[in-house]
């Protein structure tokens, strides 16, 4: 978000063509479709080998001064390709997962997609509301998240090179995440 400067804002859509916007938008929607359907092996193919995937959440902190400080954050996930592959193996192998067998019912509502170019790479901001119903839970859990994604073109295809996701939930009201945002 730091890259969304005042300057960038006024000239935003000069930098990113309609075709590029649509390419990123469709990437994110197709990605959500794969994640919702539990097609995680296919999802891995959307990632660049150097993928860095982080999830954090803020913490409530009282401010005494007149200016607001940034909220300190708590690390929830910090993944590379190796750990994501291990997660995918666990989640897609019924005998290896208790949390996801029966598989949870998931729906990702992806909104507020803003695309910009930063140091030659496409960068996208988006919000995701993940509606996740786990077996045995009386009601679904709504994970509200904000993401900043950095993309790379590899062999002519768009790949996700970095995702910084922020969960809006200092006290997470469900017993585990067991999902990707």
């Amino acid at each position, binding site marked *: 978000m730091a890259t969304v400067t005042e300057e960038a804002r006024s000239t935003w859509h000069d930098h990113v063509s309609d075709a590029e916007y649509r390419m990123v938008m469709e990437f994110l929607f197709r990605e959500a479709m794969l994640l919702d359907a539990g097609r995680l092996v296919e999802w891995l193919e959307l990632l660049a080998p150097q993928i860095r995937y982080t999830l954090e959440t803020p913490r409530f902190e009282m401010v005494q001064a007149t200016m607001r400080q940034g909220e300190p954050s708590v690390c929830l*996930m910090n*993944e590379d*390709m190796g750990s994501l592959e291990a*997660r995918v193996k666990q989640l897609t192998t019924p005998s290896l*997962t208790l949390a996801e067998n029966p598989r949870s019912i998931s729906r990702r509502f992806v909104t507020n997609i803003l695309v910009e170019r930063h140091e030659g790479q496409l960068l996208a901001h988006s919000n995701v509301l993940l509606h996740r119903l*786990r077996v*045995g839970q009386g009601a679904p859990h709504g994970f509200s998240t904000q993401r900043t994604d950095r993309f790379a073109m590899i062999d002519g295809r768009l790949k996700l090179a970095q995702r910084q996701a922020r969960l809006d939930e200092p006290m997470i009201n469900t*017993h*585990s995440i067991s999902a990707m945002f």
Partner: protein
Amino acid sequence: MNAMFGQELRNDETTFSRSIFSSEGVHAAEIETIFNSTWLYVAHAAELPDPGSYVVRPMGGDEAIIIRGKDGVIRGFLNSCRHRGMQLCRADAGRSSRLVCPYHAWTFDSEGKLVTTSYDQHYDKAWFDELGLTPVGRIDSYKGLIFASWNDQVCPLDEHLGDLRWYLDILFARTPCGVTPLGPPQRWVVDTNWKIAGLNFLDSQHALRTHAGPLDAVYKAGGPPPQELAKLVDRSPQITFPQGHGIVSALRGDAPPFAGWDEALVPLFEQTLSPAQFAHFRDCPPQVGTIFPNLSWAEPLLTVSTRTPPIHFLLLRLWQPRGANQIEVTSWYFADKEASEEWRHASHLVAAQSFGVGGVFDEDDMEAWAGISRSIRNPISRRVPVHFNAGRGMAPIENFSGPGTAYPSLLIDRAQLGFLTRWRELMGKAEEVA
């Protein structure tokens, strides 16, 4: 013990009623008899670096402010204004030389004294001494671990921790500077009973089954093969203490000494610990455990990615009850202050990947705990007892290399029984009073 608890507890020494894990009546008694009576973990000293630094932490059914005063002393107060009861601090943490109530601005200093009501002209000066913040009954610490109790008659902390301290040194004070938390804690909610969580940290049977997936990844990354691991687990010792604490010790097996540690730390371990502690740490470290009533730790040697070699990390967990069937988890990662920045970072990565609300181990454990709580509360189901009978009759290890009573396998229920026996003892006292 009253009739209800009698029926629940007295079937047999290894058999317990399901109600002790699900009844709101039992839980209300626990709040009085356990949570408002014994020592509770509240913070690590490193979370309160400066005068005025504070954290807000659960203590039984209430909230406490743990604050370092201008004088450097750490104190604890009920998080509730003495005027009309406003929640004084509404955030998780902060730093302030004074605590100002947001409703009518009664102002307390960092020692809890009422400084002004904002309208002092209408108050009798004599009242001021009585209207300071409500302090906790006692507060004390051991090697940076701060405990507090609502009960001003509670036994000394050293007595509560007892011989466990020998092992706590190995975990929290094995280098000159000791450990420091890696950022603020994760916090989340699980629909289960607090004892189910604490007992799970003394249970190794489930680990080989529930965590088969991640353990296979550890094997592929250079850890022990599953068969070997199972054998090692069956001959590793578990340790129990009369205060209810318990330890899951892990024999090193074929791994080289101090594999998965920042090598530069090893000489510091040797210099800081006693020779017996150092040898124990090297050969049979206190890998997992529970401090009665509701604090657990783990320091396993793990990896999640098959491409990354296993590494150690230190985890501390508070299981705070919200009634009989829900807990609030607070979970900190720690590292030795002297560890290198890179090692600490690598340790933190694997820690979050494996143990935490996003961890591949915890996600399956917690599904099991929630599943138990869903099932055992039902009217027919709660009539059926639960069993802690694995290894019943097995004798303790004689001449064990550390304090506490050790048993020669992790696949039996003796440390869990030790926890529940202590619980039964305390709840029994409640009965004598009632």
